[in-house]
């Protein structure tokens, strides 16, 4: 099948989202009214999504959107379609934006918009959806399906968050050095959350979710390019690229789950791996370590297997030790226990897992039970391993992983 029309359509859509996001950010940064900025551009954006794939991307995409938005304004006022605030924004477009657009590009305020969306005064769970909607123009229904929520619920949360930006007086500003680290974390976390939602559909059969991983990477590139001196922005981009590079190897031809250690590295996307390595090296030159760089470094050790034929578990163990000391979480602790098992044996690994046993959050956390089952099985503790596999199987939502765990369990009782 010829995929060229598909690629052209994707490129046109990306260009439309890029210009739309820039305009929303530029307008909203002046008024703090994100909803009205979206409202003012909605018709023009829809027209671009429909037209550009057929006609090609215009030479000045933002100017095209503005011109259409202005033209539609006349109709809208006549038909009383846009809100009052939306009309104010259209007026702003007419007066200020076009004057600017004649000879220079619109300043890129998308980073400021992202900092507003990921502000501490915005509920953490809605930050990633808010960024996807305002910066990339996704509608609430698409975002809702990716985050497994009803469109109505997602729509309400987005509307509420946008009102909050306006009414609470959340600034559109890249924070100053002193507080940048903490605030940037929130932005990176939101981007990673978007990516992770897409990543959780490993087969890539749900197009909406696969796109979300792509958009996460896109946002990661944007932030890294706008804040080139921030090592963690590069670290996150590197981490996402490493993960994305392995997508094709995560399932075999029959659609069954393949654990990382058993993946065929010929299926990894080597261009993406190279780019991920370059980002990580770039981050390292800044001399400030952080959570995302460490996680990317773990990925880097894993993919080094394509060159060395073996996995350096000692290096992974050390990276998880460092990660545990700066960002200890049950997830990190479990991965660290697995690395300990690989370097010091299953007993030590299991001991590291048992230390976590009191944490109530682990009761319904699948990776904990899967790791525990694997180590118990290695120690010949059949009945205990089976019990742990049962817990893991009952907690898994991906059918391919469930089948994988069931196969391991079956092997134990035969």
């Amino acid at each position, binding site marked *: 099948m010829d995929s060229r029309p598909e690629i052209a359509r994707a490129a046109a859509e990306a260009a439309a989202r890029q210009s739309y996001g820039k305009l929303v950010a530029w307008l909203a940064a002046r008024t703090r009214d994100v909803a009205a900025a979206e409202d003012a551009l909605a018709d023009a954006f829809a027209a671009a999504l429909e037209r550009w794939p057929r006609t090609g991307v215009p030479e000045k995409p933002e100017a095209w959107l503005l011109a259409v938005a202005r033209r539609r304004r006349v109709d809208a006022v006549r038909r009383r379609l846009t809100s*009052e605030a939306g009309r104010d924004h259209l007026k702003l477009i007419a007066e200020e934006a076009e004057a600017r657009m004649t000879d220079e590009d619109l300043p890129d305020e998308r980073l400021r918009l992202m900092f507003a969306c990921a*502000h*501490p*005064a915005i509920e953490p769970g809605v930050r990633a959806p808010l960024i996807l909607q305002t910066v990339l123009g996704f509608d609430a229904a698409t975002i809702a399906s990716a985050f497994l929520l009803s469109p109505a619920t997602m729509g309400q949360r987005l509307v509420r968050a946008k009102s909050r930006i306006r*009414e*609470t*007086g*959340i*600034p559109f*500003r890249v924070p100053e050095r002193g507080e940048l680290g903490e605030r940037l974390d929130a932005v990176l976390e939101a981007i990673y959350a978007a990516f992770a939602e897409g990543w959780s559909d490993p087969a890539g059969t749900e197009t909406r979710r696969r796109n979300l991983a792509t958009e996460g990477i896109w946002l990661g590139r944007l932030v890294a390019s706008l804040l080139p001196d921030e090592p963690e922005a590069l670290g996150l981009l590197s981490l996402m690229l490493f993960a994305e590079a392995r997508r094709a190897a995560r399932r075999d031809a029959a659609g069954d789950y393949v654990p990382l250690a058993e993946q065929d590295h010929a299926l990894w996307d080597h261009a993406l791996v190279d780019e991920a390595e370059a980002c990580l090296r770039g981050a390292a030159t800044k001399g400030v370590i952080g959570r995302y760089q460490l996680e990317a470094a773990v990925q880097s050790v894993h993919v080094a297997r394509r060159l060395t034929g073996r996995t350096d578990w000692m290096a992974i163990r050390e990276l998880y030790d460092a990660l545990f000391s700066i960002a200890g979480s049950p997830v990190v602790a479990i991965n660290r226990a697995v690395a300990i098992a690989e370097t010091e044996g299953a007993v030590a690994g299991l001991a590291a897992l048992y230390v976590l046993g009191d944490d109530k959050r682990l009761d319904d956390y699948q990776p904990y039970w899967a790791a525990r089952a694997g180590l118990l099985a290695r120690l010949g503790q059949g009945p205990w391993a089976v019990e742990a596999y049962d817990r893991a199987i009952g907690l898994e939502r991906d059918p391919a992983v469930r089948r994988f765990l069931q196969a391991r369990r079956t092997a134990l009782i035969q």
Partner: protein
Amino acid sequence: MRYMLLINNDEAVLANTPPEKAQQMSAAYGAYTEALKKSGAWLAGERLRPTQATTSVRIADGKTNVIDGPYADTKEQLAGFYMIEAADIDTAIDWAARCPAASTGTVELRPIWEMADYMPKT
């Protein structure tokens, strides 16, 4: 934008504060108020008497009910307020964090609903 800083403290703890510590606290509030005024952020601010002096009023079925005590029993009680002018919530948060009450209780930030925001435009 105008913001209200609503100061909520546990009155019982406050009532049992030894005199020298209470004086220290009072001086801290004085310095804070002065800093607000010097920076031009201060619009208003008062301390409220404890809830034992509170009277709540409500009309039901045409009858005026006067209740001795606060509207709701809470762990912390409204103890005072500042009204300030701040460019945005970040600046307001900075001021709230400097308020001595942020270390002893909670400072709640509420934007003033400006008349211009809800009156129909002409």
